[in-house]
C-alpha cells in the first residue's frame, strides 16, 4: 500500500534507512530541528583529507525526514566536502524551483506536492551543511 506522498521507494528508505545509528568515529556532528513539527536529527560525519569517509544520523523524525536522511547518507558518502556542499545546494534549489529529482533522489519527488513537508526533507541536508561548516572551521 502506498500514497501520493509515501511512494514505495520512499517507504523503503524509511523502513530500512541507510546510515541510521551507524557507529562511526565522528570528526564533526550537528543537530537539526524543525520547529514546525518537532523533527530532531543528529548528523555525524567522519572525514579524511576533506573527504567524507563515514556518515550517520539519528533522532526522532518523520518518515520524510528519515527517508531523506537515508538517501543523503547514500549520496554523500565518499564525496569531498566541496562535492557534498554542491549536492546540498542542488537539493535546496530543486525544492525552491520545483525541479524534479532524478534517479536515487527521485523518492523525494512526492514531496513537491506537499510544500509544508519540504522542510522535513530538507532538514537532514541542512544539518549536514552545518556539520560540514563545523568540520571546515575546526
Amino acid at each position, binding site marked *: 500500500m502506498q500514497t501520493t506522498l*509515501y511512494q514505495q521507494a520512499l517507504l523503503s528508505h524509511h523502513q530500512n534507512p541507510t546510515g541510521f545509528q551507524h557507529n562511526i568515529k565522528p570528526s564533526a556532528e550537528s543537530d537539526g530541528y524543525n520547529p514546525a513539527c518537532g523533527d530532531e536529527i543528529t548528523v555525524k560525519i567522519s572525514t579524511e583529507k576533506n573527504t567524507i569517509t563515514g556518515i550517520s544520523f539519528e533522532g526522532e523524525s*518523520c518518515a520524510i525526514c528519515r527517508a531523506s536522511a537515508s538517501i543523503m547518507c547514500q549520496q554523500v558518502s565518499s564525496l569531498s566536502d566541496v562535492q557534498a556542499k554542491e549536492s546540498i545546494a542542488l537539493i535546496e534549489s530543486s525544492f525552491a524551483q520545483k525541479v524534479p529529482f532524478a534517479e536515487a533522489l527521485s523518492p523525494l519527488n512526492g514531496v513537491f506536492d506537499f510544500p509544508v513537508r519540504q522542510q522535513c526533507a530538507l532538514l537532514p541536508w541542512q544539518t549536514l551543511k552545518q556539520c560540514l561548516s563545523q568540520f571546515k572551521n575546526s
Partner: protein
Amino acid sequence: MTLSSPWRKDFVMFDDSHYPSSSLPPLHYLDSAATCLIPEQVVAVNQRYLQFEHANSHRGFYPLSSDLTDRVENTRQQVASFINAPCAQQIIFTSGATSAIHQIVQGYFADKIAAKHNIVTTVAEHHANFVPWQQLAQSVGAELRIAPVKASGEVDIELLTELIDENTLLLTISHLSNVTGVENPLEQIINQIKSINSSVKVVVDGAQYIGHYPLDVSTLGCDFYVFSGHKLYAGFGVGVLFCHQRVIEAMSPVVFGGGMVERVTNNQSLWQTGIRRFEAGSLNAQAIVALAAAIEYIQFARSNDAQLYMSELSNYLRQRLSAIGFCQFLVATDKATPIVGFNLKGIHSHDVASILAEHNVAIRAGHHCAQPLHSYLNKNSSIRVSLALYNEQQDIDAMIDGLEKAHTIMAV
C-alpha cells in the same frame, strides 16, 4: 444508533455540491480546537454587515455609525450574560485571546511585578499563556514556577498549591487543555489558592473551554478570563477579556490611540474612565457582530441538547480510539471530552496527518503550541482530534480508517 449532527447542515463547507470540480473526497473536519468552522447564520450576519452596515463605531453621529455603536455595546452585554459576568463594563474586546493575555501582562502586572515575586503556571499551557509570563518574569528576575500535571492530565493540585507563597503574584492556568482536552477543576483550585494567599490573582485561558461548556465567571472566582471568537464559530478578529471589578480599575491601557482618550494636550493624555480605554483604534465591528451571532447560535444549539450530543460524540471518539491497539493516548483519563491527544505507536504524527490529509480528514499534528507539555510527557509531537457541533460519527469513522491505513503503510 448512528450519531448524526442536526447542526451539520448549517455549515455549507460540508456540502459537496459547492465543489463541483474538486477531486477531493468529502471533508471530515476534526481540527476545531485550531478554529471552528462558521455556520451560515453567522456568515449571513457578516455578509449583511459588509453590504449594509459597515461603518466606524463609536465615532459618527449618523445612524450607520451610531446604530453600529449600539450593536457593539449590545454585544458587550450579550457576552457578559453569556459568561455570567456581573456587568458589561467588565468585558473588553481585543483582537483575540493572545492579545487579551498581552493586555493583562502589560496592563496589569508589568508595573506590579518585582524580582521577589513569583508567577505560578502549569506545564500544560498553550504558548500564548506561557511565553508572555515567562518573558514578564525574566524581565525583572522574578521566578516562573511551573506545576506538573498528573498522569490523568489534570494539574497536580497538591503540587500546585505547594508553589503558592506570600510572594506569588498570580496563577495563570487553562480551563481546558488544547492538547489533551482535560479540564482543570478551576473552582476548587482557585478556592485553595486564595485560601493560601488571598492576594494572588488568577488568570484563566478559556480559549478551548468556551465553545464546549457553559461558563460562569462569577462562580469561578477568577480575576481575568480570556477567550477568542474564532473558537466559538465566529471567525477571526475578536477576542474577549473579562476582568473582575477588583482588578479593572488598577489596569492600564497598553495600546494608545484614538477612541480611548478623554483629553489630549501637547504634554499629556487622559484616558477614558470606562473599559473603552483598553480599546484603542477602530474596533473590529464586523468580528464583534459575528461574535454576537455566534453566541446566539451556540445558545440555541445548547437549548437543543448540543451538550448531550457532544458528550455522546466524544464518548464514541474515545471508544473508537481505545479499540485501536496501536493508539497511545497522551494522558490516562477515561473522561471523554471533545479534544483528544494521542500518538500511533512508531509513527510520527506528521506522517499520520499527511496520510489522513490525502483522504481530506483534517486533524492536527505537531506540538500544538505546547512544547513544555510535550517535553514533560517526553514526546516530540502528537496527533490531536477535536470535535465541534458539525461533527458526526462518519467523521470519526473516516479518521479511524485513515489511522488504520497509516499504520499499515508506515509501521516499521
